[in-house]
């Protein structure tokens, strides 16, 4: 079972809804940032 944390990331303007998965693989420096589409654009 994967550990996916539902989190909010805040800046001065908003709280951004996000899901974070941290790999168990040690010392891996890489992460993929995935940007969702916007429903106001093409309904996706």
């Amino acid at each position, binding site marked *: 079972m*994967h550990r*996916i944390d539902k989190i*909010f*990331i*805040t*800046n001065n*303007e*908003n*709280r*951004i*809804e*996000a*899901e*974070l*998965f*941290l*790999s*168990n*693989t040690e010392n*891996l*420096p*890489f*992460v*993929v*940032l*995935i*940007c*969702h*589409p*916007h*429903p*106001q*654009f*093409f309904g*996706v």
Partner: protein
Amino acid sequence: MYNNVVSGVFNKLTQNEISCLRFNFRGVGNSSGNHTVGTGELIDTKTCIDFLLNEKNFEKIIICGYSYGAAIGCSAVNYSKKIIAYCAISFPWDFMGLKYKELSQSKKPKLFIQGNRDTLALYENFNKYFNFYLEPKNYKIIKGADHFYVGFEEEVAQEAYKFYKLITK
């Protein structure tokens, strides 16, 4: 937080023990705020990048975005030297204007995934836009897919995963 394309990529990567953060722009889902037609959404992207670098101490970020998320997310490519590549799925150049094409220009590795039946991120204009970008770059045409990739999610996810493996080898 669900979209068939993004969830396909997210699931593929996490099942292969690849760290990922996915997010909704302001005004979408449970994110607060209102849509700003790009300016604020670019700030949202940079906020997530800062979070990964400063709070989670990652050293290298690969950006992956779909549709509007490709236009905005990939436009943050030059925000940090620690962003090392991006994967754009159906970048809607024709709808986003020149600004996001210019902002997403980079000498970093780039992969563009495009359906050959996409009438929103227009397939007929794909080569024109692809040719604008500097090397290194590559593309993958998903035959039979329109903008929504129904039934093609696994193929898209596999291409994103292959790109990750190539970049991080």
